[in-house]
């Protein structure tokens, strides 16, 4: 598996999408930095971390993750490399799992970039109340939210295998980000898989009447359904040249 991940990184060499995703990871901290400096919205590190985590995991991550997963799977079709990879030979299930693991690794990198860039922007803005514990806590919450969000993206694997160009994933990701905005604060928000991760990681789930285990259940069910249909589709379908 390590070799697969190493090779996935090699595949990203000179790739613009990796750089773009890093820029995307910096965008929420940058926007919050602008809000703080230009509009005076809060002057503490705690508020900055909270806001960045919220906008990242509830909005930006949804869009960026959709693009990343679509790229990871779709490029193998679009660049006709799938037939090369599978005839090495690589089993279809191993291929599917290694791609999904690479997606997780990519997410962890983006989380690190978001957290550290938030810290840097906070220092530039001269915010008060920084502590190492606060930073670690904020990073852990964002990482947890993003990992849970990662689980909810298995249906996007199927979409990427079914429609191999990136447009449906981008539209889907943008649509989900909007859905998240709309349902946030609604009673039934914990039933929406792509909002749950933020609600659980931030602790806001406690404000809802739905128990946290239901939210975990929604995430797990989404993950399993997405993986099962992706596996069934990918292992049964002929490879298009």
């Amino acid at each position, binding site marked *: 598996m390590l*070799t*697969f991940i*190493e*090779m996935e990184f*090699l*595949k990203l*060499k*000179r*790739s613009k999408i990796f750089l773009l995703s890093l820029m995307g990871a910096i965008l929420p901290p940058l926007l919050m930095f602008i809000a703080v400096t230009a509009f005076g919205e809060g002057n503490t590190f705690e508020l900055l971390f909270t806001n960045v985590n919220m906008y990242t995991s509830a909005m930006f991550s949804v869009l960026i993750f959709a693009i990343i997963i679509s790229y990871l799977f779709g*490029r193998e079709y679009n*660049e*006709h*490399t*799938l*037939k*090369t*990879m*599978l*005839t*090495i*030979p*690589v*089993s279809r299930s191993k291929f599917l799992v290694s791609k999904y693991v690479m997606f997780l690794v990519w997410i962890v990198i983006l989380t690190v970039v978001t957290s550290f860039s938030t810290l840097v922007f906070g220092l530039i803005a001269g915010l008060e109340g920084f502590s190492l514990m606060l930073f670690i806590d904020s990073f852990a919450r964002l990482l947890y939210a993003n990992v849970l969000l990662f689980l909810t993206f298995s249906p996007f694997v199927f979409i990427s295998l079914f429609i191999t160009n990136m447009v449906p994933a981008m539209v889907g990701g943008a649509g989900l980000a909007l859905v998240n905005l709309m349902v946030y604060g609604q009673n039934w928000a914990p039933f929406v898989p792509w909002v749950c991760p933020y609600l659980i990681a931030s602790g806001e789930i406690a404000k809802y009447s739905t128990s946290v285990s239901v939210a975990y259940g929604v995430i797990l069910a989404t993950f399993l359904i997405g993986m099962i249909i992706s596996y069934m589709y990918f292992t*049964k379908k*002929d*490879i298009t*040249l």
Partner: protein
Amino acid sequence: MVDYVIKTNQLSKTYSKNKVVDSVNMHVERGKIYGLLGKNGAGKTTTMCMLLNLTYPSSGEIFLFGKNPKKHSDELYSKIGSIIETPGFYENLTAYENLKIISKIRGDFDPYTINSVLKMVNLDQHGSKQFKDFSLGMKQRLGIAAAIMHSPELLILDEPINGLDPFGIKEIRDLLKRLSREFGITILISSHILSEIENIADVIGFMDDGVLIEEISKEDLHDRLNKFVEFEVSDIDLALNIFKVLELKENEDFTVSGSTIYLYTHLSLRDKFNALFVNAGIDVGKVNLCEENLEEFFTRFVSNN
């Protein structure tokens, strides 16, 4: 007992109600070059995809190296190198990087092997060039490099000389012949360039409308090619009268086109016919003993079947 590296039994593939490969029984002998010949849409690529497990058969069986690939997938496919249609590689990477990915995943990465195989296909001078900037010929050559890099026992090559210039075609032809003769690699190659198949293959499989019509060895093929004598004469009517007197029948024993007669029977008497023409005062501009080429044979063969 003949050692078949590829053997299929009633192999078929149906898309909706369209049967694109129909009960193919293919026999590829170890160490031979097997040319799969057919028009576009004949089912060559689908057959190869089924052999490589990229496409699942609707029915029938495949045996590779005498074993069922469903049960021995890793063992069998690691002995195979392939190109299906245009080779697919990562566009942002160089030739070396692309081959590195393949060999790392296969578990046999060796920089020296990659460099030598790139040299073998004349891609060693393009170190920093990314795949997206490759010409079609370069892409094909990289595909061949990837296919032979792990010293496979079987090569399955679908139109590998597509996009190559005449020099490139000759290079690849020589390389494939060398791989077969020196290393005993079995090669299944498809091409729409009939002369190339004729040049390279030991056995030719004729495919049309999803059906493998026949597998013919090169020796048998030579015996089955139509032969004829071409007479170019100054007085066609007089020449035809002579044939009429000799009770030769048009469209049966010979055909006529302009001032040329194509004689298909009694070929050994061509010098006698020539003498008769000359004695009758006919100038004979050309007397050629000709053999049908593969293209003509293929056209006749497919239309007859």
